């Protein structure tokens, strides 16, 4: 499965979806679930953190925390991937961020994107799940 930026953001927000997202990420961290994200989607989180005044140390802690995840693979996006993702923008009407996620789902044959973003719901070849669907 693919983890979208908003799942990490929900953990940082610690609001309505914070607890479910936290439990889900712990499953990935322990290796109970195998998941992928991209450097681009992690950069989204950093961009938001910086915009809301978080320090270099908080950003470093977020990034370093990812090294501890047994079940997480960070897919490094290349320019070729980004160009291919624009085909999904055209075919599915998604924005660029979501198209990159959908592209990786397709390329790696993951089938599921974990996200609170309902924009994925119109894409017939992937299934969107939220952490509440996945945690016991």
């Amino acid at each position, binding site marked *: 499965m693919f983890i979208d930026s908003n799942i990490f953001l929900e953990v*940082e*927000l610690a609001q309505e979806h*914070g607890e479910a997202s936290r439990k889900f990420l712990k499953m990935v961290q322990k290796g109970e679930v195998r998941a992928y994200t991209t450097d681009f989607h992690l950069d989204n989180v950093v961009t938001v953190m910086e915009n*809301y005044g978080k320090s270099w140390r*908080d950003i470093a802690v977020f990034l*370093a925390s990812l*090294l*501890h995840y047994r079940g997480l693979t960070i897919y490094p996006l290349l320019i070729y991937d980004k160009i291919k993702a624009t085909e999904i923008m055209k075919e599915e009407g998604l924005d*660029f961020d979501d198209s990159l996620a959908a592209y990786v789902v397709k390329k790696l044959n993951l089938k599921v994107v974990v996200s*609170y973003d309902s924009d994925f719901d119109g894409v017939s070849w992937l299934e969107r799940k939220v952490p509440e669907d996945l945690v016991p």
Partner: protein
Amino acid sequence: MGSIKVNVSDDVEKRFRMLAMRLFGYGKGALSVAAEKAFSEWVARVSEVLEVVGFLDDPVDAIYGMLSHVKKSGVELQHEARKIRARKVEGECL
């Protein structure tokens, strides 16, 4: 010389064996040479990074609530990131 026994997925094992042998020959020791290089690179990269923040007791709890002062949803913030990037690009163009 130390010895480490590890378990990896079938796919990684297959590709690792194939590449190690193609690079370092089909004789004895090719897998060890490739593994030593892989381990050394991982150790060097992780050691360097850990000098910045050290070890985290719980990597998920370490980030929990970092943005609790922000009263928006994760999806709203993710969409905001796109606008922030666009603003930065605009600023660079001016």
